[in-house]
């Protein structure tokens, strides 16, 4: 670029930069033609936003505080289904179901006799089961209240990651035991699957 000589010299336009920008925009539009030609459903794949739907899992871990936790696994679910059936048959209330749920599934963090961490023991049991049944997939929902340090969730994830066949997956969400205590609906749902029956429990907060 030549230096500007004197006040009468005309200023030169920065054409090269302008052309650069125009070409970049051109390339952008050429690429975006591909996206805009996709049907709506496929375009959505590029925007993975969480859906407002029930979380489906085999295992629920609800951290309560440093002293206790809430835990449901498939065996407990089966027992819960039977309890709910009994309560429903005698016309029991939602409060009764909540009580049964909380009584059955709330555990102290430390075992008084052995001093072991109950939650760790339960997760170890789950891992043992998952290692014995590599063909099965497990999904664990970990709910953690905002006031607890997230470190606790990380510790649980590290434990779950020890499954040999990596057949334990997990999802973490925020939530407190108050959600379960004040649940609006607790009911059983029987789902036929491959000629057999799966007994599920639905909890709505």
């Amino acid at each position: 670029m030549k230096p500007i000589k004197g006040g009468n010299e005309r200023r030169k336009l920065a054409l090269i930069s302008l052309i650069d920008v125009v070409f970049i925009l051109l390339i952008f539009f050429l690429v975006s033609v591909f996206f805009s030609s996709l049907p709506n459903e496929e375009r959505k794949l590029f925007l993975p936003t969480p859906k407002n739907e029930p979380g489906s899992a085999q295992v629920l871990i609800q951290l309560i505080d440093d002293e206790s936790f809430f835990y449901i696994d498939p065996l407990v679910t089966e027992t819960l289904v039977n309890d709910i059936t009994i309560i429903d048959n005698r016309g029991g209330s939602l409060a009764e179901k909540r009580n049964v749920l909380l009584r059955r599934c709330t555990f102290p963090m430390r075992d008084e006799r052995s001093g072991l961490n109950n939650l760790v023991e339960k997760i170890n049991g789950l891992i043992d089961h998952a290692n014995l049944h590599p063909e099965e997939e497990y999904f664990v929902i970990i709910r953690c209240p905002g006031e607890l340090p997230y470190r606790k969730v990380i510790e649980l994830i590290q434990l779950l990651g020890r499954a040999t066949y990596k057949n334990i997956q997990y999802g973490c969400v925020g939530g407190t035991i108050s959600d379960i205590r004040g649940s609006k609906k607790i009911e059983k749902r029987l789902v036929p699957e491959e000629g057999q029956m799966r007994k599920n429990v639905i909890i709505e907060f």
Partner: protein
Amino acid sequence: MLKKILGIFFAVLFVVFLVIYVYRAVVLSGIPIEDADLGNIVEEAPPPARPGTQSLILTGPLIKPLVFALNMRTPGMRSLDWSALNDVDFTADVRVTAKVGEDGALKFNPLDDVYCPGHAKAGEMIGNVMRSWTYSPYKTGTIVFRYNVGAVGKKLTIDVSKLRRREGVDPDTPLKDGLLYFIDGGLKGGEVKIKTW
């Protein structure tokens, strides 16, 4: 002069592209243009609900269906020899009305419940064998066996329509019928009819 025209041309092109870019960005996001300007509400927008924050479905283990069938582990259980029955009375027509008890045992009175006019020997033979039969304890009620040895087609009819799920058996667990008779020596599967209603 040419440079000036070129400059204006590219500047206009740039502005046009910019407008198109913004328009396309809005259209691609799928938001109506009038709603595209979020203004101040962004700070107030609640975090989106994620699976597990509002409701949970806890899936239990798969429950295998129960099978109502003869309990082959019952000590002393005997099979009915169809060819021997043929030899004893090839026109035998015997009806046995029995009760399946809470424990699954087959109970009947050889005198009253085995109806075999003119075929006493065949009736006695069938009754003796059937007394040793025990079912899995999932159903109770009346079960009727009709042995028609000389028939063409269905030679054995078993009526299970009056059997009911035993009290105490989980009502949610599927209950299927399995092997309901223990007969050797020539009776084919196609010659047996299970009457369920």
